């Protein structure tokens, strides 16, 4: 029998070097896009601030010193002090822990739950799919910020409840996204082939559908972190998020509002922190989308 045995493709070493080239290409693209790089650097900086807050802070964020209330920025208090004499710089530094972890928690939980439910829904189809879709439609029909506020208020004002509320409202977006992907993927040859090899429904969802539905979900998640930080701050601002004395940016801006005419520094610094952090996540998310999904570029 005359069957060719050589294969006209690259050796495994070449492929490995190709793979490292692809990773290299990813970093090349990040470097080529200054805004993505800027976003990434700020995120990295913020993550460091969050991790090393106890060392970076100059004061105990909750130490009250009524003798030094509402002092303007100075060498002792870089961002000034608040109405009970707490150091605003230290509170902004510790506030990063609250805000950024809310962002990651919400996106993590909503992303994982949403993707699983969406992929399941899309791949089983039929009545279960219809039911899940109508449920998401119902949630999506209410403006998301209003619903988040209502939920947070109903659950009771605390940072954890605010996180829970934001997560619940974010889940349907991921369900929709993942289901759309699953609908396309379940018609692919490898899903059909997996069925002919006797694969169970769970195996198909786990190994074939979720895996291939991930790229757009990852992009969506990166973009969502910034928005989530903003929503958490907004909830804090209207008093439905973190409560005093916890150092949280939204709550600080809200309290600072009462003193804004004479003491500009109180609201300014936590506000800037919110602005910079959520913008940098958005810049980074946009960049990631351009790299992972070139078809969407420029939209």
């Amino acid at each position, binding site marked *: 029998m005359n069957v060719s045995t050589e294969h006209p493709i690259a050796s495994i070493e070449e492929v490995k070097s190709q793979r490292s080239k692809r990773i290299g290409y990813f970093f090349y693209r990040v470097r080529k896009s200054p805004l993505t790089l800027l976003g990434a650097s700020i995120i990295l900086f913020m993550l460091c601030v969050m991790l090393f807050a106890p060392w970076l802070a100059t004061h105990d964020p909750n130490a009250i010193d009524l003798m030094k209330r509402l002092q303007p920025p100075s060498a002792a208090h870089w961002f000034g002090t608040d109405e009970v004499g707490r150091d605003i710089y230290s509170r902004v530094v510790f506030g990063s822990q609250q805000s950024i972890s809310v962002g990651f928690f919400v996106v993590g939980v909503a992303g994982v739950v949403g993707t699983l439910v969406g992929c399941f829904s899309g791949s089983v189809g039929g009545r279960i799919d219809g039911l899940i879709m109508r449920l998401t439609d119902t949630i999506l029909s209410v403006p998301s910020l209003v619903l988040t506020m209502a939920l947070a208020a109903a659950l009771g004002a605390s940072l954890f409840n605010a996180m829970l509320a934001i997560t619940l409202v974010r889940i349907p977006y991921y369900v929709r996204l993942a289901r759309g992907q699953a609908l396309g993927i379940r018609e692919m040859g490898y899903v059909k*082939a997996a069925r*002919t090899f006797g694969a169970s429904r769970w195996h198909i969802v786990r190994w074939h559908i979720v895996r291939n539905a991930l790229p757009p979900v990852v992009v969506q998640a990166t973009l969502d972190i910034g928005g989530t930080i903003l929503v958490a701050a907004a909830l804090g601002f209207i008093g439905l998020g973190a409560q005093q004395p916890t150092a949280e940016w939204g709550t600080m801006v809200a309290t600072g509002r009462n003193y804004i005419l004479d003491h500009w520094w109180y609201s300014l610094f936590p506000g800037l922190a919110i602005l910079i952090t959520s913008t940098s996540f958005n810049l980074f998310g946009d960049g990631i989308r351009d790299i992972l999904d070139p078809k969407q570029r420029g939209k």
Partner: protein
Amino acid sequence: MDSRTVLSIKDLSIEFPLYEGTLKALNGVSLTVKQGEIVGIVGESGSGKSITAMMTMRLLGEGSYRVRTGSIDMLGVDILKASEKEICELRGGDVAMIFQEPMTALNPTRKVGKQMVDVIRRHQRVSKGQAEEIAAGLLSDMHFADPEDILARYPFELSGGMRQRVLIALAFSCNPKVIIADEPTTALDVTVQKQVLMLLKKMAAERKTAILFITHDMAVVSQFCDRVYVMYAGSLIESGSTRKVLHSPRHPYTRGLLAALPETAAPGTQLKSIPGSVPDLSKLPVGCAFQSRCSQSSEKCHQKPALAEAPQTDAHLCACWHPLTDLEAVA
């Protein structure tokens, strides 16, 4: 049922309820496949050959079709009545399938080895390491020079012919008794097609695996199949050994198909074709589906001819009121 029969379809009629009416996809299809036999189903697009293949493993979407009559017996399991669990045990175990599009039949995000190990461990109680050894052995049977290397690759790193060989290796991974091959070589170029067919035939012969081979390519049938069924508009119209059917076709449609092969035409002459086109499956004529295109048709053709033994032959069946004789066929 003969103990050597692995697949037996009896009088199977399938229809698809559509908005415009009922699409009669299969009309009284009966066929058998014996152990170790390579049986071809040949027919043009829309003749029902792929539906037949899908039905043997009940892969059509539940609820999208209706079974009017008939039964399918695959290795003693009543496919139309079995539970989903029984069918899942059968799929990939005793029965495997090879598809038309090797480019999409492997998951692009997982390594070939991982996917092969999944299938092997689905049906055999072996450890991961053992499964990898089995996979490597199968790949070297498929003439891969370096099986370990292939196992560590992602599907996009392989060519179409290589992927189809991987899929054939997968199909053989649990020593199936039957393989359903639905146009496995259609997407490949001719040289790769030959290579893949030779491997498939060799593997089947070594393991005594029966193959139900679906194709539209007469040349492939003549090289590959022991027996062949010719299908037209959802019915089987002729069956018999490959040699008999291809060398002395009895049914006017089969003869028309063979006459239309470019190889038979003299250079410079126009290629022959069968006049007319395939009837709409939702508006099939009463009687023989081929009557409107047939030069032999008569009043009698308004009744449906049964698949009956052709004159002067044994085991060469033909569903026609006016079967051709050898002399006419040769002419």
